[in-house]
């Protein structure tokens, strides 16, 4: 029986206090009533302890120092500002909008034919961008992975399937496409502001991670004609932030509940 996790229980303590009490009886010479198995502390509950102060170990500092010095020069460079703190959220988030916009922007800047849609995943955006200056280091933390941007040439019906993937996923960062989520299906799908045209192909910018079987949008995993401009997602973000200066993405109803 899992005391700790079932919905209705009195978890952990009640059951374990009883168990502990019986153990304590068994323990010869142990007269303490301090219940074992608790976060033993004054009052018998709560986090016990913290140290008063944790100085940094000099040897470890020395170990890390030369690496830090090498990183710092580059990583502390400010490339732009966030007008407000950008976080991810579902079905749509400002951080995700920035990321997807950056993919379209940076792809176009390579001279490649622009994409109709950009899609990435919230799971790949690892930290918020706090309001204020944005450093290269922060973008590394936002996008630590070496994911490359890829462009998939997708038939119209696959784009519809992809929209349903997005709806079932509860929304992931997108640009160029908008849809409503109706009963975990996509509705009112627009690409570039227009309904999907049967028979047409669309260019989808995404990450190699999502296109190669990662994430939860299976439509991206099929074999499509693929372009691989030599562009890391992280570099796309950096290029976009540098070119934009102050980024202030908004919730625009790209993916919205109905």
């Amino acid at each position, binding site marked *: 029986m899992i005391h700790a996790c079932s919905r209705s229980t009195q978890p952990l303590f009640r059951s374990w206090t009883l168990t502990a009490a019986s153990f304590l009886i068994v323990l010869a*010479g142990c007269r303490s009533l301090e219940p074992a198995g608790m976060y033993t502390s004054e009052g018998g509950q709560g986090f016990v302890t913290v140290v008063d102060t944790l100085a940094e170990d*000099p040897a470890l500092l020395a170990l*890390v120092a030369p690496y830090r010095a090498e990183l710092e020069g580059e990583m502390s460079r400010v490339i732009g500002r966030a007008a407000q703190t950008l976080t991810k959220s579902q079905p749509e988030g400002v951080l995700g909008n920035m990321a997807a916009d950056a993919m379209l922007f940076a792809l176009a800047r390579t001279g490649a034919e622009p994409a109709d849609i950009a899609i990435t995943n919230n799971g790949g955006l690892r930290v918020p961008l706090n309001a204020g200056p944005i450093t290269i280091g922060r973008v590394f933390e936002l996008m630590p992975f070496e994911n490359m941007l890829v462009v998939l040439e997708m038939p119209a019906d696959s784009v519809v399937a992809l929209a349903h993937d997005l709806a079932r996923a509860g929304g992931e960062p997108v640009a160029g496409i908008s849809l409503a989520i109706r009963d975990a299906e996509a509705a009112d799908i627009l690409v570039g502001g227009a309904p999907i045209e049967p028979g047409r192909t669309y260019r989808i910018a995404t990450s190699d991670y999502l296109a190669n079987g990662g994430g939860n949008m299976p439509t991206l995993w099929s074999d499509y004609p693929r372009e691989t401009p030599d562009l890391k997602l992280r570099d796309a973000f950096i290029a976009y932030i540098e070119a934009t200066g102050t980024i202030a993405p908004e919730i625009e109803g790209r993916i919205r509940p109905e």
Partner: protein
Amino acid sequence: MPHITNVTPWSRREFLGRSAAAAAGALLVPAGVMAASEKRLVILHTNDTHSRMDPFPMDGGRNEGLAGVARRQTLIDRIRAEHRNVLLLDSGDVFQGTPYFNVFKGEVELKAMHAMRYDVATLGNHDFDNGVDGLVDMLHHAPDLKWVSANYEVAESRLERHVEPHVILERGGIRIGIFGLGIAFDGLVLPDLHEGVSYNDPILAARRQADALREAGCDLVVCLSHLGYRYRGEDRPDDVSLVAEVPGIDVVLGGHTHTFLDAPVAVERPAAAGVGADRPPALINQVGFAGIRLGRLDFIFDGRGRLTRWYAAHYNVDDRYA
């Protein structure tokens, strides 16, 4: 979540209220009352440290000022100075998360683990981020660290020489069996990156390991798991289902879900299972990510080497109280 409803989370105010008790900077872990014949094993653990060498920057973020390997080292040293039988373990995802990894490919993380004298670790999905070669090529930076995984089949890869299903360590006459479990690669690790390494069912592997380690006379069976704490309503193995199905495990030190458990979760063992029925409930613990916390579990064994009880504490790796 229900399991912490009656545990008052530690807070700064409480700490300040208690700081008199913390006089002289004692680490204050429940000493309990120990009989002369008893032995204490102290297990320290981290998970998902994610290349966090330096404390989080003071940028207004929620974790600002927290973590950092140099502070963790200080804490570990102080605990080692107080106790003889100490193990230091990690549950995976050592790699990825700061530019240290992007630029130095894991060298700094592993050198720091070597300096801190980590004993055993298991593999997280992100430890494959530079592929099997990218991982193996870094392992010499922590030559004494042992890697365990019982459900990753590594025989066909270069990891073969570096990863064992389990290890058995001894501390002060206590035998500790430690095995590892890794998460399914699907959707997490691209095929190219785990080439030659395949995933097997973790529950089956865990049963085999728990039995083997009991048979080998281990006094404590520890699982380093990167499966994740709990997936509600999803049919996939997690730490909660693991301890429910494998009663021979005494403690699961988890990872992957970056779960901050304020208290370890105790799970009663099925009485019918024979093994474990006379032991304290099995424990699951996980300490978030990035080395923001160091987990500590003290296991007390009686004169016959029987596990009788445990104490637990988490340390915030922090200097705000300096």
